[in-house]
């Protein structure tokens, strides 16, 4: 069934209707979340009580808006902090990995490549618990040996960053490798012939060529970190990132302030994703 093959009108119509229903279904939950951010009611549910901006800007009970809700604001800050660290680290390691697999052949390369892919196949919750178990073992060993209590090895932001980094690096590696493979090595050779040191050649020729992929990998890593739930859940300490805070609030049954946060998240991630796609297209 392609346009050049004649099809009966009814079949085409049913197919079009199916596609339409699919996209409505896709948009439905997000649209609902957005609409109820403006409901002037204590609950994100019917009946509709009228339009309000209160869940964004309200500053008095019962309507404390998002911008006056300290716990949510601080967890957004925590999420941004974690996401910047995770994306910075994973782009860095992703770049070195991409260069390693692209430029060198060595015994065990195939095995290392498969190991590099493995974090994608391990369920997030298992990554979380394995890092939790291992870090607390190290913390125990350190404490027994020196009596030092290492805070960083207990559930908290350091472990959250480590946990997210452990699988996001694979994705960064794949994104950066995909562009590095297309790079024309003769450009680098030309620079070397003109007297550049290998490092200068890479810095002035290869890295600028890779830049769209580096930015792309950073944005993807940022978004994945920001919305990560499973791994974070097992490693979180007292400073909860946004997804964990929202999860706790949701279990309690929350006010439409969660819808307001969700609307910001939808806007933020759409803008980032669209900007990234525009960048890749250039």
């Amino acid at each position: 069934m392609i346009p050049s093959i004649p099809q009966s009108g009814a079949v085409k119509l049913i197919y079009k209707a199916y596609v339409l229903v699919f996209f409505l279904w896709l948009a439905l939950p997000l649209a609902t979340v957005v609409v109820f951010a403006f409901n002037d009611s204590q609950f994100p549910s019917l009946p509709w009580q009228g339009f309000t901006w209160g869940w964004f800007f309200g500053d008095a009970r019962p309507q404390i808006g998002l911008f006056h809700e300290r716990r949510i604001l601080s967890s957004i800050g925590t999420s941004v902090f974690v996401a910047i660290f995770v994306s910075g680290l994973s782009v860095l390691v992703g770049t070195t990995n991409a260069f390693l697999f692209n430029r060198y052949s060595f015994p065990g390369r195939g095995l290392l490549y498969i190991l590099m892919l493995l974090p994608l196949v391990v369920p997030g919750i298992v990554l979380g618990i394995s890092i939790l178990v291992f870090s607390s073992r190290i913390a125990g060993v350190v404490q027994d040996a020196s009596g030092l209590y290492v805070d960083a090895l207990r559930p908290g932001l350091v472990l959250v960053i480590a946990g997210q980094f452990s699988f996001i690096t694979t994705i960064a590696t794949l994104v950066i490798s995909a562009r590095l493979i297309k790079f024309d090595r003769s450009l680098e050779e030309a620079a070397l012939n003109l007297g550049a040191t290998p490092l200068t050649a890479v810095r002035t020729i290869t890295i600028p060529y890779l830049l769209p992929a580096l930015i792309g990998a950073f944005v993807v890593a940022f978004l994945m970190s920001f919305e990560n739930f499973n791994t974070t859940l097992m490693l979180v300490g007292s400073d909860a990132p946004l997804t964990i805070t929202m999860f706790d609030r949701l279990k309690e049954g929350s006010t439409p302030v969660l819808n307001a946060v969700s609307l910001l998240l939808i806007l933020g991630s759409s803008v980032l994703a669209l900007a990234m796609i525009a960048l890749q297209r250039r």
Partner: protein
Amino acid sequence: MTGRGLGFYLLLAPLVLWLGLLIILPHIDMAIVSLRTRVAPREYVPSLDNYAAFITEPLYIVTFLRTAIMSVLATVITLIIAFPISYYIAKIAKGRSQAALFLMCLIPFWVSELVRTFGWIILLRETGVISGFLQWLGLADQPIEMLYNDAAMMLGLVYTSMLFMVVPLTTTLESLDDAVIEAGYDLGGSGFSVLREIVIPHAMPGIVSGCIVVFMLSLGNYLTPTMLGGKGSLWFTELIYSQFIVRFNWELGAAFGFCLLGASSLIVWSILRLTGQTLERTMGEGK
């Protein structure tokens, strides 16, 4: 740069540190923890008790099997829903509308899974939008609770993993030359036989990578079963969470973790084996 000088080792070091400290050693340690039993405070003996408990305790093994079967079901449903959509995007839509449809598939998945689940909660719960709509239509005379059951959970799982099926399918279908499909029809094939003998075999790598990712995401999901599922839809990850965080029985929790990892690896491996694909190829084409 073919010799292995300092540069090689500088590039190797981050990879080895990352995989060693965050993937390999933690998993080895988790294996050790899962293979021991506490006999007194801070005193352990090696044993298989945790795995024995997993097999003999009905709650554990039933939850495990249920989770695996439901994940397979979610994967199949996702594939069936996604295939016509991917085909439409790859082969029927053209130019701008093609790009726009593809983008419309992508956008919802850049938003946190939590927000998507929250949306379904608002829609499905007793005071929710669908229940209200049905009452307004006169189809129901009292609020209907559509949340907290297997159907709601399945809906959430399928919704959450849709993108990971649509993207690889669309990518492989796009690479199928229209002329091949035309040739199939010219040679007297019906719509069904062209689909079965040309389109599906060509899309196989996409189907495989989509199914692998969707299966793994469903199996390892925690949020959707917890928020949308009912008392009867206990998910295996919820057991892991409760052993680790609530009961503080890390030994049993670690054993559960390995069972989950084992199930997911086994299924991924057998799908790859059955279809003659490799992990490298599948992951490369999946993104």
